[in-house]
């Protein structure tokens, strides 16, 4: 189970700090093609920004359908960049929101903290 924000607010809950991208798996998946991995990283970063904004708005509006849609896409992006922890977190929120469970909203802040870390790690990849 994922951490839940006790205060039930949008304040971010800090993630554990451990790396969220499995770089070995990422390089293995794309056959060590570093240029291609950078291309993927660039697109992933921009897509994560786009769908984070949609999720933020959905959480604010309590729009469960948009929570489902944005977490579904964020799950896909994280999976493609070998960030399984983020993928699993997005998948759990997606499943909750499909069941119309309000707990979905409470888990969003933790996803945001993971996404923040994921974006930082992607930037590191781009700078290497």
């Amino acid at each position, binding site marked *: 189970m994922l951490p839940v924000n006790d205060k039930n607010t949008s304040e971010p809950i800090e993630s554990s700090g451990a790396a969220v991208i499995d770089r070995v798996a990422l390089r293995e*998946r794309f056959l060590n093609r570093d240029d291609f991995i950078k291309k993927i990283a660039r697109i992933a970063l921009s*897509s994560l920004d786009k769908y984070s904004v949609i999720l933020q708005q959905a959480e604010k509006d309590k729009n469960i359908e948009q929570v489902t849609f944005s977490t579904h896409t964020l*799950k896909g992006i994280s999976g493609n*960049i070998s960030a399984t922890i983020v993928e699993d977190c997005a998948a759990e929120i997606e499943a909750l929101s499909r069941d119309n469970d309000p707990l979905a909203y409470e888990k969003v802040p933790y996803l945001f903290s993971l996404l923040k870390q994921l974006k930082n790690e992607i930037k590191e990849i781009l700078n290497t």
Partner: protein
Amino acid sequence: MSEEPIKVFVVDDDALSRMIIVDEISDHDFIITEFEDGQQCLNAMDQAPDIILMDVEMPIMNGHTTCRTIKEKTQETVVMFISSHDTIDEKLAGYDAGGSDYIIKPIQSTEIKQKLNIAIKNIELRKNKPTEAPSSIKTTVVAISNANEQDIILDFMRRSALTKSIQQLAELIVEALKGFDLLYTTVQIRSSGDTVSCNSLGSASPLEIELLDKLQSTGQVQEHRHRLVTNSGGISLLIQNMSKDDGKRGQVQEHLALLLEGAEARLASLETNKK
């Protein structure tokens, strides 16, 4: 291989997914076009793509609705769904929409290549298929499709005795069911190590085969809206267009039971002959 390159549409709202899919299939000599949603894809259908790799969940128009709309106009295009949901219900929904195969996200290189190769092989077979002279076994069944339903069953019994292989038997079942207005049926026959699957158009799609494999152990008859799955011994049927009328549906199910009984008897006899 035919001379014209295969045309592939990649439809996914996520740019990253599209990029990875295109990268995975770029070693083939395809003409690839990308779209962000189902509506964009529909707008470009005049380009007559051979294969569409389509995400299920997309804004504006999702993959299932897009596929349904495409299939109303053409059966020539192979639609392969790409989704992160690996459940039997999701796959049945994809089948109901007209999909031929399912690829699970995140995409695995070997899987997508393998599935594309199967699709290409089927497309080539279809394109190069000579106009088939009707076989004597099949023709009679079609010819009496306007006869009464008991006659269809009797004729099936008679013709099934002439079948020499489980492939012929499977094809005969498909043809006989057309007499009950079941115009699109998939049949799978499993016989001592051999499995044969075919549908009303010829070879069964990988998705149909996967569904029949998975559903063979889940009960004798399963109905969901207009779809019926029936398992009887080594024979399974996946029927897409059952009547909405309860009375007619019940009648068809009774005929199916009789027909399957006859088919099973022939299958047993074919197995004995084989030994």
